[in-house]
């Protein structure tokens, strides 16, 4: 393994330690990642996790951190723990100085004049931003195939999907193109890609990370969260981006818990962990079930009590989600009209009126899945249907919250597989929207109720050798519990595997070269 290969395989926590100890510079680390991106991301068989690589700015921030460290003194002391550790940002989150596309043609070439709150916090922590990662257009999808800029490939098997919508962020971390990334999770877009790429992803409690600057899909469901290779790394990043933001009216006023401490002092002894009856078994791949059962066994051995809970209303979650999400999205995406920014397309024939320009712009600028959801949402909100659709879905939300309340009365955390299957083949479900939607069946209830969820690698499925994700869910505002339990399960599993799961992933650069050589 080359020196760079060693560097890029370190966890963010380990990198932070080496940076602080002066064993490596941020420029070296950042350059190593940029080199890795150059090696594996491009080309016809590249991972294609990035839509934009932010070389100059990333190196400039890295050099600034190195200079501060070299100078020593108070400024060096005050550097954030993660200062100098690079990060990738999902291209749904606006950044000054880099394009933000949301994976859509309608925003091609658009530069935001303001930074998202989470991006400001990354800048305050002096974390070099490596670039913007690929996603399903406006985060609408579970495979990243709905990106207007082409799909991202799963580093475990380049013919498979990396999950979605945050496939770019998950694949970047899985392919060692970044130690950390930001994702957004509306119905599972952080956790499901985490599951199918063998990475860790966290959807925080709704309102605990500011949404300001995340291009909205469904306002009452969206949440920004960390993507990483270890549970501790997610906690470190969560601690950077979390906490109250006055620009987001739904931002919780609570002070952030010490998530890093929770990840470092993982413990499940005497804890009650609830298996959600409705979120495993029928409809779940056998290999997924097997790995899930193994994890339960390990937790039991570590002193946890496994109980079974029932959430009978979860069966309505997917349907209610596919009413609330498109309804809010249809309104949130109305602003993309060719007037103030982004694409403008003129109608082919006369008359040239603004109405027709809007219609032509949105016809050309949005992809099929986005149009499908806008039309569905427009339908669900339209006169005469509101009560039956949007109104009923909001009631289902209440039922799902009650299910969670009852379940958390019996268990400290809940557990389930993150996704019913491992990564499927590119193109396999592209023309079957309903089959695609089913990927999120286990992740959606958390968004509907606002509770936090974490997905971590649970091993490889027997039948296809692909990663399986284990999902942990905690009550709202109890994100720390996820890290406490996740850290324990992670260490037990890694002990079993003899190292991180990602060590078993195929050597990527080699595989791309071989493919290209063919």
């Amino acid at each position: 393994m080359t020196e760079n290969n060693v560097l890029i395989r370190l966890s963010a926590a380990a990198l932070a330690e080496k940076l602080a100890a002066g064993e490596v510079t941020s420029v070296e680390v950042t350059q190593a990642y940029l080199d890795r991106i150059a090696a594996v991301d491009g080309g016809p068989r590249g991972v294609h996790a990035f839509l934009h690589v932010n070389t100059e700015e990333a190196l400039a921030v890295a050099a600034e951190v190195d200079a501060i460290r070299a100078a020593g003194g108070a400024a060096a002391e005050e550097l954030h723990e993660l200062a100098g550790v690079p990060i990738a940002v999902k291209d749904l989150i606006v950044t000054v100085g880099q394009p933000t596309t949301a994976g859509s043609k309608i925003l091609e070439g658009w530069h935001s004049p303001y930074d998202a709150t989470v991006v400001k916090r990354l800048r305050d922590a002096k974390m070099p931003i490596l670039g913007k990662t690929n996603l399903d257009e406006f985060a609408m999808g579970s495979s990243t195939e709905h990106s207007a800029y082409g799909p991202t490939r799963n580093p475990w098997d380049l013919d498979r999907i990396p999950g979605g919508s945050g496939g770019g962020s998950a694949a970047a971390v899985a392919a060692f193109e970044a130690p950390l990334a930001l994702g957004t999770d509306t119905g599972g877009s952080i956790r499901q890609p985490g599951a199918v790429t063998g990475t860790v992803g966290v959807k925080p409690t709704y309102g605990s990370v500011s949404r300001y600057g995340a291009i909205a899909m469904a306002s009452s469901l969206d949440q920004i969260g960390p993507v990483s290779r270890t549970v501790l790394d997610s906690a470190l990043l969560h601690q950077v981006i979390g906490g109250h933001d006055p620009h987001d009216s739904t931002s919780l006023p609570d002070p952030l818990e010490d998530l890093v401490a929770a990840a470092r002092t993982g413990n499940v002894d005497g804890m009650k962990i609830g298996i959600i009856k409705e979120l495993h078994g029928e409809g779940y791949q056998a290999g997924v079930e097997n790995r899930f059962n193994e994890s339960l066994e390990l937790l039991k051995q570590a002193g946890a009590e496994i109980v079974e809970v029932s959430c009978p209303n979860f069966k309505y979650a997917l349907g209610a989600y596919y009413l609330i999400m498109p309804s809010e999205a249809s309104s949130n995406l109305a602003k993309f009209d060719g007037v103030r920014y982004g694409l403008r397309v003129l109608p082919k024939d006369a008359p040239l009126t603004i109405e027709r320009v809007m219609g032509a712009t949105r016809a050309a600028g949005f992809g099929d899945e986005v149009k499908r959801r806008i039309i569905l949402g427009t339908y669900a909100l339209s006169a005469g249907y509101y009560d039956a659709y949007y109104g009923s879905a909001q009631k289902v939300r209440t039922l799902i919250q009650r299910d969670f309340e009852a379940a958390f009365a019996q268990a400290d955390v809940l557990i389930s597989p993150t996704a019913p299957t491992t990564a499927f083949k590119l193109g396999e479900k592209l023309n079957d929207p309903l089959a695609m939607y089913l990927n999120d069946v286990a992740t959606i209830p958390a968004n509907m109720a606002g509770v936090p969820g974490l997905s971590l690698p649970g091993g490889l499925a027997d039948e296809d050798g692909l990663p399986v994700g284990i999902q942990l869910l905690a009550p709202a505002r109890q994100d720390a519990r996820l890290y406490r339990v996740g850290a324990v399960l992670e260490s037990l599993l890694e002990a079993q595997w003899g190292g991180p799961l990602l060590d078993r992933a195929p050597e990527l650069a080699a595989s791309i070269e071989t493919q290209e050589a063919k």
Partner: protein
Amino acid sequence: MAAINRDDVAHLARLAHIEMSAEELDRMAGELAVIVDSVKSVSEAAGDDVPATSHPIPLTNVFREDVVGHTFTAEQSLSGAPDAYEGRFKVPAILDED
């Protein structure tokens, strides 16, 4: 619940300001019908006594003090504009309502 047909989709596309070809309307009507059918159980899930939840974590009275913050220059405001003229966004003629 009423099935969704091509005319419905055409009406919705008009409301949503998305031009659609005849072929697209047909395809969309088919796909939406399937999706709408699969979500219809939702309307029967909850009784009248169940309140709606619009925000997952309830908060109230989140306000901002009336203090002036940052503004853009006209140049910044128009930086992404497809067309502009004399500090303003330029748009093709607006169809009069009458």
